[in-house]
């Protein structure tokens, strides 16, 4: 089973600390890109009156998602255990098809690359990619 090495955990924690001052921006922008570039993802937000990428609901929800990611960073040593509640939420209430975790991860990394071009080196990219994949796995824990 894939897991983060001790070194990779440090890389992820350090990088997310660096990003934290702009984390709201990252979250909002990543979700906006998700619904623009992958319009099928809008199916999960049909209950929102405003689905415009720069509208308030999308921005607010992007920030919420980013908050979840920071919670994951703080629980990096036990993602499955630490994200149990979020996993149950996604499995039983939200029922987001897990393919979308991959797509959102890609959008998050595109935004990280845009806003932190110098810092988002290939070495950091691979650690973050692994981390996001492990978060996605933890969120899918309770699906079936």
């Amino acid at each position: 089973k894939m897991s983060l090495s001790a070194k990779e955990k440090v890389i992820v924690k350090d990088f997310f600390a660096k990003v934290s001052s702009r984390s709201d921006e990252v979250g909002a922008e990543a979700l906006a890109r998700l619904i623009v570039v992958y319009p099928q993802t809008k199916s999960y937000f049909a209950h929102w009156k405003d689905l415009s990428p720069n509208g308030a609901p999308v921005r607010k929800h992007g920030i919420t998602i980013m908050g979840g990611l920071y919670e994951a960073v703080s629980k990096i040593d036990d993602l499955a255990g630490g994200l149990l509640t979020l996993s149950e939420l996604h499995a039983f209430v939200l029922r987001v098809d897990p393919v979308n975790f991959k797509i959102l991860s890609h959008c998050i990394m595109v935004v990280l690359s845009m806003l932190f071009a110098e810092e988002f080196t290939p070495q950091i990219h691979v650690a973050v990619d692994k981390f996001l994949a492990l978060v996605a796995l933890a969120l899918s824990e309770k699906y079936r």
Partner: protein
Amino acid sequence: MVEWTDFERATIQSVFEKMDYDDVGPAALSRCLVVYPWTQRYFGNFGNLYNAAAIQGNPMVAAHGKTVLHGLDRAVKNMDDIKATYAELSVLHSEKLRVDPDNFRLLADCLTIVVAARMGADFTADVQGAFQKFLAVVVSSLGRQYH
């Protein structure tokens, strides 16, 4: 046949016109080899790919990165028939190079990340959409002749 909007056509031309191939090509390929290390299987004769620093400093990787990126020029110039444009290259990748076509998608993702870094705020959601659609067509065309 793929339908392109005026915005998408203009965006693809503009992104590639502004691109520094000598910078982006090597950056995208080396990033792919670091982020998805199993892709190194195709480069056994490239010498030292032992770690990220070695990969990023490897001149054969850099040269090949430029080759691959210039390979996209044909699609940029023939957006209305990318499938036919890449038929031969698809056969080459399938029968001679024997590259798992999923690798095209991995490289495309790394290229997107590199272009995002270079373009910064200019890489808007709409530009990203057009760019990814273009790459998806390229990736699909390169996989078309596999059997």
